[in-house]
């Protein structure tokens, strides 16, 4: 569906702002002070009682990472995309790409470990520093209403169910 011209202008502005924040982090800090994020009344805290070499770890990112043979995240919708991609722990970095226009990911393409440390966690598991690494999950972190509701009510709970099914002990979340 075509977007109104005003939405396209707003989307271009948001993309440019994200790219600028990537280059000048202090501007991002100033912006964040005025940003009204989601707030929650409680903190869902679970103590971790197993030693790390026995823990199954999951990696969840909002960096827009996906396999090249998976559908890219939707960049045409100015309100974002609440879907996710599941990525096997053994997927080589050469088979990965990024679809996320709201930050500069040139460096991520050079070395996925700076945002999506699948390779490092996989190798740490092989060496016994962590117990194991489950499949990884990737979102595209530009998600505005109404897609935010989809994220909260549908896609994030789906990932949570899968993490539970995979008997994950702890999750590392990495932002864009």
């Amino acid at each position, binding site marked *: 569906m075509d977007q109104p011209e005003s939405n396209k202008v707003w989307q271009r502005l948001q993309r440019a702002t*994200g790219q600028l*924040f*990537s*280059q000048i*982090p202090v501007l*991002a*800090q100033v912006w*964040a*002070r005025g*940003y*009204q*994020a*989601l*707030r*929650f009344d409680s*903190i*869902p*805290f*679970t103590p*971790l009682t197993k030693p*790390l070499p026995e823990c199954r*770890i999951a990696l969840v990112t909002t*960096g827009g990472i996906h396999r090249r043979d998976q559908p890219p995240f939707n960049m045409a919708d100015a309100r974002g995309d609440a879907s996710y991609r599941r990525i096997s722990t053994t997927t*080589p*970095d*050469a088979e990965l790409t990024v679809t996320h226009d709201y*930050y*500069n*990911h040139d*460096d*991520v393409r*050079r*070395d996925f*470990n*700076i*945002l999506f*440390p699948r*390779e*490092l*966690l996989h*190798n*740490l598991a092989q*060496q016994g*520093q*962590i117990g194991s690494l489950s499949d990884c999950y990737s979102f595209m972190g530009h998600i505005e209403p109404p897609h935010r509701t989809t994220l909260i009510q549908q896609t994030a709970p789906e990932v949570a169910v899968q993490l539970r099914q995979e008997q994950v002990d*702890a*999750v*590392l*979340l*990495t*932002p*864009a």
Partner: protein
Amino acid sequence: MCLTSLKPIAEQVRSPRSLYLAWPFGHPLGEPGNLAQQLTVLHAALYGLYIAEPGEILAPGWRWRRESYTIPAGWEVSRDC
């Protein structure tokens, strides 16, 4: 454990545990090719799971590009590429 580069937002969201580093967007574990930096962040994040209080934002204060890092003991991993 949630890595974050924006503390004001982390303070609002109140995830169970956070690790704050004021680094540029797209670089939560540091610079490309800097294995010691990446493993240092990973080590702090994973062992932070045991020390962080509910809602705590751990802040090691490492600077961007003006810090020297060493690979955490026992974490000498090989790279696939």
